[in-house]
């Protein structure tokens, strides 16, 4: 009985007999649920009309009304109302017609239960857990950088993108992985697309991870460069994590909350102490590091962190990061909803129609759509949504809440970050986010440069820049690109309005820098480790010894290769005279979304094999969009004749200048700097070529698999089904946040069962 009806398991007859006569059903009856969903009471209609109206008004205020300012609360209403409608209606369509989850089927957490990796987890807890795993610094950084073009393009893409693409990807990948016992994206690609597509997907994933880790690290380096306070407080997270690790291993094993609270208190002390240390002469001298030094520090740290045992550094750091994440979300929400700042940034800025913006280069299409990846559509999530979370899901129907809903939540974080960042003065925004080559690096030159841009309503004095810097406890805020410092200034600016006043701004600023750095360093540690195992596995296909995780030389060699790869890209970004973020950040987005294209392509092939042709557009539309965006962006990066956009155009310009014997060209002031540009642009250019070629291979193989599936079905040949064998479920839990009437009824039935009957017996297959 290893095969299934091509339609999934719609009914329980035949295939899935009830698990046990003594047990209540493991699923709400299909007809009952259907009737419940289609019954529109006046109250329900009124509620959804109200949500739609409020959302409509909010969008009108953001997109149509052109006043002097717009209040931040409209961003909240526009996003939340759109999410609610997307969740209630669109994700329901996906559930009903494409995925067809069946609560009569046991999830891997039930049939593979081992009390360790496969554990049924309460849906609300798992929602938080999954959210903490997918959300990090990405949604806090991308929208800030994209604000160069005004608030509207970014807002539309974040909100519409998540409903139609980002949340769809997360939901689909999670569901398909759950049906396969929690298999990873790479394994699914191999199974569904064959050797060529699978191998291309694996290599692309590996390269993409390198780029993502490198550019996240670049954001940290930019935030900490020349900032003794930041270097001290972020540096202190390492001894704090080590202490927590030892505490949990030897002193009080398992006291996770206790140690997290201790860690949090120490973290606060590190932030406050950082101000004191940076205020002393020796502290300022010792912790005042340039970006290259910090980059090398991060590289060495990354290598050590990836070979140290998890308990010592990674696990405690992860607890700290999760703990902070919850606090940060609360803080962002309070900042936006309570203070409701007035936004003076225009809907479309002067740079929306140009491709040479100072913050990131490239035209609105396609580069806005890659600059904001996390929060709208993030391929990296496919790696989290397959693997860990599917092994913890209690009931199939909960994937909509956890997968789709979790991503909506991340999108909301992105919107809040966008609002926090655009609540600061536009002059300050451009002075902070443009590379030093443009601003000149000092308050005077930066003010002059910003005023010379001819932006409407922008007139900034050097004093404003100097005052803001001293308020947040920094020497300077000029050219602190990367997004993190801008968000920190925005947050400090809002938070001081109701806690502490100007005197507290420095604390809030460094609090924000601290959590962004913490999120990123956790992603860097974990990313390096995951990539190392992927590499070990791949090399293991040729040299089996490498597959042994305990073989030290192999582990160290693969770690060194991965760290060396991202370290090289990081150093390129740091030393890039054009400003690393300006040229490299688009590469981050392209990499992330090519991964999304790969994930969606795999999902499309799977959906086609399940026979869901009529609703294949649910996958095909976001796949087509992200494929067009990323491939167009890659083509711009490869073939554009504008040196600011095209890597090879830039390479040619600098090569020519060198050949002509020039010693200073554009932003590069020395021959060595010019040679660096020639080298970097060549590597970045070829990376772009490799990414796009690999992704196209994956997409083409997926399309071929899809077409083949359609042909097979028309010819009556069954398609290969790689799902695990369906097993009857003997547990029940509701699907969403609030149980429906029918769900409550069934829960009551289960609660009436004597305890010995309710106990799972999944261990015995």
């Amino acid at each position: 009985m290893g095969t299934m009806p091509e339609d999934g398991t719609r009914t329980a007859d035949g295939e899935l007999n009830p698990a046990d006569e003594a047990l209540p059903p493991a699923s709400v009856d299909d007809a009952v649920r259907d009737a419940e969903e289609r019954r529109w009471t006046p109250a329900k209609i009124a509620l959804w009309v109200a949500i739609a109206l409020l959302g409509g008004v909010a969008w009108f205020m953001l997109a149509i009304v052109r006043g002097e300012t717009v209040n931040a609360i409209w961003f909240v209403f526009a996003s939340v109302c759109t999410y609610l409608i997307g969740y209630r209606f669109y994700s329901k369509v996906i559930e009903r017609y494409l995925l067809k989850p069946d609560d009569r089927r046991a999830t891997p957490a039930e049939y593979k239960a081992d009390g360790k990796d496969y554990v049924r987890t309460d849906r609300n807890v798992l929602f938080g857990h999954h959210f903490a795993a997918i959300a990090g610094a990405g949604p806090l950084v991308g929208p800030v950088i994209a604000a160069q073009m005004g608030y509207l393009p970014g807002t539309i893409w974040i909100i519409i993108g998540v409903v139609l693409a980002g949340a769809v990807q997360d939901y689909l990948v999670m569901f398909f992985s759950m049906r396969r016992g929690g298999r990873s994206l790479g394994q699914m690609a191999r199974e569904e697309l064959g050797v060529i597509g699978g191998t291309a997907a694996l290599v692309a994933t590996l390269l993409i991870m390198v780029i993502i880790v490198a550019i996240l690290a670049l954001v940290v380096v930019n935030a900490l460069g020349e900032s003794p306070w930041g270097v001290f407080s972020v540096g202190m997270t390492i001894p704090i994590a080590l202490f927590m690790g030892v505490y949990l291993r030897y002193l009080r094993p398992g006291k996770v909350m206790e140690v997290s609270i201790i860690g949090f208190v120490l973290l606060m002390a590190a932030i406050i102490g950082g101000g004191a240390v940076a205020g002393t002469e020796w502290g300022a001298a010792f912790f005042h590091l340039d970006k290259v030094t910090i980059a090398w520090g991060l590289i060495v740290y990354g290598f050590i962190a990836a070979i140290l045992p998890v308990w010592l550094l990674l696990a405690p750091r992860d607890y700290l990061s999760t703990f902070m994440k919850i606090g940060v979300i609360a803080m962002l929400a309070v900042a936006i909803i309570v203070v409701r700042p007035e936004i003076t940034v225009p809907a479309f800025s002067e740079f929306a129609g140009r491709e040479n913006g100072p913050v990131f280069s490239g035209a609105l299409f396609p580069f806005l759509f890659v600059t904001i990846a996390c929060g709208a559509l993030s391929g990296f999530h496919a790696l989290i949504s397959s693997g860990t979370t599917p092994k913890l899901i209690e009931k199939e129907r909960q994937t909509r809440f956890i997968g789709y809903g979790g991503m909506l939540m991340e999108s909301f974080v992105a919107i809040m970050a966008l609002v926090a960042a655009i609540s600061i003065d536009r002059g300050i925004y451009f002075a902070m986010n443009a590379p030093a080559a443009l601003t000149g690096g000092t308050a005077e030159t930066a003010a002059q440069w910003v005023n010379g841009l001819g932006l409407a309503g922008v007139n900034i004095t050097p004093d404003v820049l100097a005052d803001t810097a001293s308020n947040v406890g920094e020497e300077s805020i000029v050219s602190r690109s990367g997004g993190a410092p801008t968000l920190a200034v925005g947050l400090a600016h809002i938070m001081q309005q109701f806690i502490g006043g100007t005197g507290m701004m420095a604390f809030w600023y460094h609090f924000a820098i601290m959590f962004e750095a913490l999120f990123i360093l956790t992603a860097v540690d974990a990313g390096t480790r995951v990539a190392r195992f992927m590499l070990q596995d791949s090399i293991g296909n040729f040299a089996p010894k490498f597959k042994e995780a305990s073989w030290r030389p192999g582990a160290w060699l693969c770690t060194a290769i991965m760290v060396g790869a991202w370290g090289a890209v990081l150093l390129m970004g740091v030393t890039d005279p054009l400003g690393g973020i300006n040229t490299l950040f688009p590469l981050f987005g392209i990499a992330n979304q090519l991964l999304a294209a790969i994930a969606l392509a795999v999902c499309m092939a799977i959906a086609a094999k399940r026979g869901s042709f009529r609703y294949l557009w649910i996958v095909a539309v976001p796949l087509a969009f992200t494929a067009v965006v990323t491939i167009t962006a890659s083509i711009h990066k490869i073939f554009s004749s504008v040196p600011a956009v095209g890597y090879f155009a830039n390479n040619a310009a600098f090569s020519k200048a060198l050949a002509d014997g020039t010693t200073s060209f554009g932003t590069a002031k020395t021959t060595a700097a010019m040679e660096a540009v020639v080298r970097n642009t060549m590597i970045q250019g070829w990376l772009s070529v490799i990414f796009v070629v690999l992704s196209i291979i994956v997409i083409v193989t997926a399309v071929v698999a899809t077409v083949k599936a359609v042909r097979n079905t028309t010819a009556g040949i069954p398609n290969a089904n790689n799902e695990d064998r369906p097993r009857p479920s003997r547990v029940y839990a509701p699907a969403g946040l609030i149980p429906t009437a029918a769900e409550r009824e069934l829960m009551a039935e289960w609660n009436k069962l004597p305890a010995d009957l309710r106990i799972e017996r999944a261990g015995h297959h």
Partner: protein
Amino acid sequence: MSANAGSGGLLHPVAQAFRGFSRYLQGVMGADAYRKYLEHHAAAGHGTPPMDERAFWRDRTDRQDTNPQGRCC
């Protein structure tokens, strides 16, 4: 479920809400992993005694050494 038993009815609503939040937070952080392991162990009816708390956490992090979980951006 057992931690709360017996004290539910008399608690102040604020204290109850705080308890609920704290339990939720523990779940999200994975602090309740050992309790869930014991529940599973008891339910599965293995003949062997379960690992003690120290051994369980040691085993958990050691398995993560070779099976790392990704953390996203």
